[in-house]
């Protein structure tokens, strides 16, 4: 087979896989927004029966319905794409077009939720962060639900500032002059309130609160020998870039490869690279991805189960880079070269700083346990704990009991049934492994032929959310009871 033909086939395979992830993201955002609006309607209708406030919700619900309609209209095309292993370039383009027509406006609708009453974050998010960062009692950070533009911030002032500037409100910093800055407030997208898989990103944000307190990135950059004439702006950018990689490593250390996944989905959902990562505040995501994967490899942690997504993400970035104008492309490439030039030599120092924090490390044994927990999710059960003995071993011990066996022997056999709590990082990893291995099958069921059953995908997501929320809750209570003071 000629090389160009092989290349085209590989590229078409990658494009197909990219569309699968994008389609899942489109359905996920639609379904999650619908769920939020449904909750809002329940409250509004019960509280203010004659209120016209529901009109706001109706407008958003109708908009979502029109995008669902678009998917349903194209269900034959999408279904054919899902079943066809070797689709043509034209088919892929057509499906990509449909998905983009849904994802782009739906992400904009998400931003409008800032106009509705704000829900609070689920308590399980605190269980997860407290467990990952070994904090007992009150966590020194809170979580606020916000829009995508302000999410992934870690200071309440930044979140408010971002929301206010979107609404052209007065300068917050001026209004708050003289007040002490608040603590860390991690921003989480509205849509991810019930989605523990997306919470993996909060481990990165929590890393910022560590960096903010200890000024680690600042210290690393300060020790750099900079060429004469380095401006303050450039210094600030370097500190921010180092801080991002520091936080990526913090998240990877406590959560493993799952810590990277939410940001890849966020980036893939965007239509272009313009305005995306790779600027004064963030180094380009491919650089962060490469450095973090290297860090994970140095920790002897495999990324199996996640490799496909990493590969597709890089392809997606490449495609978007190609779509830029020559000047924009050059700019992105220059930023990437500069980020690589700064960060690659510093990666070992950053890793040293992170390793010195004595954070709980996610190791290969945790990854193995996550793989076992994934089977529980597959069986429709919460994945909060595991037993040390196998069912066969326990059965053998139970079978050895006879009438008249001593109480001690009976208890000894029964105690084999005791379960040990899973770590939150294992639960989140199990969740991602389960989702990445099951979503394609769910897409096929959602688009079985000429019609689409979009509700099925929503039910699937709701079930995964519920099982993961329950798992985090169970593990937290389990640990509390097992603790010496429990």
């Amino acid at each position, binding site marked *: 087979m000629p090389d160009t033909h092989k290349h085209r086939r590989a590229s078409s395979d990658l494009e197909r896989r990219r569309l699968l992830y994008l389609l899942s993201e489109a359905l996920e955002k639609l379904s999650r927004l619908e769920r939020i609006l449904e909750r809002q309607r*329940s409250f509004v209708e019960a509280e203010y029966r004659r209120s016209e406030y529901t009109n706001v919700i109706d407008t958003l619900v109708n908009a979502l319905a029109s995008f669902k309609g678009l998917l349903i209209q194209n269900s034959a095309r999408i279904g054919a794409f899902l079943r066809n292993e070797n689709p043509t370039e034209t088919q892929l383009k057509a499906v990509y077009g449909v998905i983009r027509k849904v994802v782009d406006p739906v992400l904009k609708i998400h931003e409008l939720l800032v106009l509705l009453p704000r829900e609070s974050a*689920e308590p399980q998010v605190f269980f997860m962060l407290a467990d990952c960062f070994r904090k007992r009692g009150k966590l020194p950070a809170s979580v606020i639900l916000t829009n995508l533009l302000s999410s992934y911030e870690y200071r309440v002032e930044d979140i408010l500032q971002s929301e206010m500037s979107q609404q052209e409100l007065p300068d917050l910093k001026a209004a708050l002059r003289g007040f002490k800055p608040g603590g860390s407030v991690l921003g989480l997208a509205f849509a991810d309130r019930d989605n523990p898989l997306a919470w993996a990103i909060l481990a990165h944000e929590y890393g910022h609160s560590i960096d903010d307190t200890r000024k680690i990135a600042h210290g690393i950059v300060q020790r750099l020998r900079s060429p004469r004439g380095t401006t303050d702006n450039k210094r600030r950018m370097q500190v921010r870039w180092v801080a991002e990689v520091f936080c990526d490593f913090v998240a990877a250390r406590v959560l493993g490869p799952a810590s990277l996944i939410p940001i890849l989905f966020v980036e893939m959902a965007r239509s272009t690279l313009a305005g995306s990562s790779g600027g004064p505040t963030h180094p380009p995501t491919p650089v962060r991805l490469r450095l973090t994967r290297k860090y994970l490899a140095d920790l002897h942690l495999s990324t199996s189960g996640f490799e496909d997504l990493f590969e597709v993400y890089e392809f997606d970035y490449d495609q978007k880079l190609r779509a830029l104008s020559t000047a924009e492309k050059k700019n992105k490439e220059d930023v990437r070269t500069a980020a690589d030039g700064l960060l690659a030599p510093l990666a070992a120092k950053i890793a040293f700083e992170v390793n010195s924090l004595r954070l709980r490390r996610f190791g290969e044994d945790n990854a193995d346990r996550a793989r076992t927990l994934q089977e529980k999710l597959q069986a429709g059960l919460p994945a909060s*704990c595991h037993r040390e003995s196998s*069912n*066969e071993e326990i059965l053998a011990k139970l079978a050895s009991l006879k009438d008249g066996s001593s109480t001690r022997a009976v208890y000894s056999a029964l*105690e084999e049934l005791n379960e040990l709590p899973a770590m939150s990082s294992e639960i989140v990893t199990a969740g991602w492994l389960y989702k990445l291995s099951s979503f394609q099958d769910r897409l096929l069921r959602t688009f079985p032929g000429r019609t689409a059953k979009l509700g099925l995908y929503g039910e699937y997501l709701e079930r995964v959310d519920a099982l993961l929320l329950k798992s985090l809750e169970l593990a*937290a209570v389990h640990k509390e009871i097992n603790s010496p003071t*429990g």
Partner: protein
Amino acid sequence: MLLSEIEIARRLVDLDESNRLTVTPILDAKEQFGPSSIDVRLGTDFRRLENINRSQVALNEGFHNEEEAYTKRVLLSADQRFYLHPGEFVLASTLEYFKLPDNLAARIEGRSSWGRLGLLVHATAGFVDPGFAGALTFELSNAGRLPIELRPGLRIGQICFFSMSRRSLIPYGAKHRAKYWGATGLQISRAHTDPEVRGRQRKPQ
């Protein structure tokens, strides 16, 4: 036939999945297993009725929304407390998640130590169908005269299991309307979805 502790234990690790019973997590088998039952624990979520704006429980079209809005949801962390006051009625759930095979039914009851303090764990619905999967909802009330301090993880109930003479052909999950299947936390009433209730809604008497 009521299962003994060893029969329950065997069912928990049965190699045949169609016979396997799931009760998870089991934190302390020595404390939890009784001669013919397993103690079950209080979960973290509660719903208390907020009655100041309600004149009655009306199973009308807005019932579900009203239940959502007029029950205050409280989700505790593992070390927080919940005070159940005399005469108060709240919904809560088991910490445990259950999955019953098609040939096993169950019954949830209170534990006498808590009953003596006035704690009732269900109002009237303690039976669990074969094929059920999910956390069980407690209908907690305090029949005593002093508030009772509760916290997640307390063993306030016990569950026993009955082996059936043959497998059910319509286990709970396959039932025509399995209203509470797969719940991972407490479930508010879905009485308004019962056909006889919906019928009344259409034809007011």
